[in-house]
């Protein structure tokens, strides 16, 4: 029963116009999961939000030479967890060094990671030679 149940591998150009598609696919997936009916809509929305923020960052902070590049997103459901991975080819960053947003400061930016942390159960960022990956997990059962 540790098998991956559903696996979605999405590759889109690194352009913000595809945020909507990625978010919509995540919502559809959430709607098929075995979660209580009253939680399904919230889960769908949270997934849409976390993915939108993560993919927007992957696009924004990818190397400027990568204008023909793509963003890859993997969504996997297995063993009661939904895991979402967003890959980028930029310089990477230290996620643990990003503080929780000070909500009293009215800055225009800096709420993306805050949203991801708020709606997902765990977030990790790994720099590897072949690229970076932001991995988010959420318990669904």
């Amino acid at each position, binding site marked *: 029963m540790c098998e991956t149940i559903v696996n979605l591998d999405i590759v889109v150009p690194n352009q*913000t*116009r595809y945020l*909507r598609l990625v978010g919509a696919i995540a919502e559809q997936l959430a709607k098929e999961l075995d979660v209580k009916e009253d939680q399904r809509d919230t889960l769908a929305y949270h997934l849409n939000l976390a993915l939108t923020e993560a993919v927007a960052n992957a696009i924004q902070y990818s190397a400027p030479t990568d204008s023909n590049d793509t963003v890859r997103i993997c969504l996997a459901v297995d063993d009661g967890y939904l895991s979402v991975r967003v890959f980028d080819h930029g310089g990477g960053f230290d996620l643990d060094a990003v503080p929780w947003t000070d909500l009293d400061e009215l*800055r225009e*930016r800096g*709420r993306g990671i805050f*949203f991801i942390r708020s709606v997902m159960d765990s977030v990790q960022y790994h720099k590897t030679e072949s690229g970076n990956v932001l991995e988010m997990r959420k318990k669904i059962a």
Partner: protein
Amino acid sequence: MRVAKEVRDDRTVLSIQEDRIDAHNSGELKDLVLKTLEGGAQGVVIDLARVQFIDSSGLGALLSGYKNASLRSSGFALAGLQPRVRSMFELTRLHRVFDIYPSLQLALSA
């Protein structure tokens, strides 16, 4: 970004015609609000009734408008927030910062 602009008495209403505000169109929204304020609008109301989704960049665009309006002593109000959108303001506590009305009508009669 599709936005309907309308002047009502002394206020300019910007009705967002998109169901989503995200990094793809939030820059445009920010520019539009700034231009409207620069154009001398005494008060701006953003009607969000059709918006079902807003991300952090969308909140940023609205904050930009709020701050710019404050500098100019113009009014800046939001109307018609759908539940999902409203929850984003609550999560960031920005519902305590913005002037928020349940509907455009209530925003205009305020």
